[in-house]
């Protein structure tokens, strides 16, 4: 192997066909209302943690839907569980439980 002074970059593209949907399956079974998200972002807008850091709950569960759970593992730890998100969701997504479910999924599936 030769070091040319540069390396192959990882493709940012989500390859849905090779996605990891084990997390989605588990999370969905724990909180089916996740399907109802319309991506409005009010959950993130009201989020206590998002006031301090780039934590984005709307994005996190969307990423799980896309089969790309790896990127959320570190992010999810930032949630303070205050529950404001579920109070503002216009679609009645049970967001606090959804976060809990994602945590469970990561706990179970690693």
């Amino acid at each position: 192997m030769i070091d040319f002074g540069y390396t192959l970059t990882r493709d940012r593209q989500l390859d849905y066909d090779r996605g990891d949907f084990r997390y989605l399956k588990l999370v969905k079974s724990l909180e089916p209302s996740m399907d109802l998200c319309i991506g409005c972002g009010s959950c993130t807008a009201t989020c206590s943690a998002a006031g301090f850091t780039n934590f984005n709950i709307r994005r996190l569960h969307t990423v799980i839907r896309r089969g790309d759970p790896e990127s959320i593992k570190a992010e999810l730890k930032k949630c303070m569980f205050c529950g404001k998100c579920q109070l503002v969701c216009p679609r009645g997504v049970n967001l606090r439980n959804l976060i809990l479910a994602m945590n469970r999924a990561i706990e179970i599936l690693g």
Partner: protein
Amino acid sequence: MDNTVIVIGGGISGLTAAGMLAQQGLDVTLLEKENETGGHLARWDRLFPDRKKASEVLDFAMEGLNKVKIVTGVAITGISRQDHEFTVSTNLRDSGYGMQDAGYQSPVPSPQSPVPSTQSPVPSPQSQYTASALLVATGFDLFEARKKEEYGYGIYNNVITSADLEEQFKSGRKVLTSEGKTPGRIGFIHCVGSRDEKVGNLYCSKICCVTGVKQAIELKEMFPESEVFNFYMDLRMFDRHFEELYYEAQQKWGVSFIRGRLSECSENPDGSIILKTEDTLTGKPLKMTVDLLVLLSGFVPSGGTRGISKMLGLQEGTDGFINSADQHSQNNLSGIEGVFLAGAIKGPISVSESVADARAAAAQIACYLSSFKVTND
């Protein structure tokens, strides 16, 4: 001024207006370029949001048309006007021409139209019709999906349009891929030919959003195991019960919605289609293989609309659709005395709106012919 009216266009708007006018005792002639009346609706299976059979709506419109003189299969070659009288000249059309003109590439042979045109007198090759009022209801064509070359319609076997899908629904057959397989994953692409500067259409075709949701549900019903994705830019659920249908698609049917416009697609060796889009909600480019891709074609002014518009000198908007005298209060007036507008000639419109608009137009024509002023001038 006598009580004669010519309705140009035998789609749902033209039929509804003609029926209304005839029931008010007016002498109505309806000219239709196709050999059958019914327009787009005749090729559609079910309507949003309640999935009513399109044929039922059409049947309803056809009731009370027995006094209407319906002439089908004619091309209008000229319209002249003397005082209050319009003369419309027609010529017989080559029957095969109409389908191509509509930009409608049907993968399956069109089933027999539900509306037999028994009333049609056999028109002589060249005819003339006169009337005191004209109702132009020449409607729209579906955007020719082939123009979005990168979407591969007409090139990749498993790329179809919403109209193709609707015909398959209407035929009652299972929707299969070109390889004859059950589609495991299906993609719907919204805004094909709409809201797209690159095809010259800045406007929203408005009804494709809910059509995509409706068809997604219908495919999920047909194939509960399949995954259905809608790729959208916005979902404009503008009318009553539409948002609920969207909710139902998510909650009951598990249809997925990805916000991102398809950039391009290509074909796999097995005939499946690779989509490239951005999932704008995660901010990442996304690649996905689907077995069947449905393009939700938008509205464009129909060939008939363009032709009649030129003959009459109607006001065309920048989008090619016809401007009415006033979008708010005189939306059925063309600005030319005695010439009225109804339906999708004025832009994208749903069936229910077309029916209401056609009735409004009929009422205005009746007023006009009884010399009751409905305009401000």
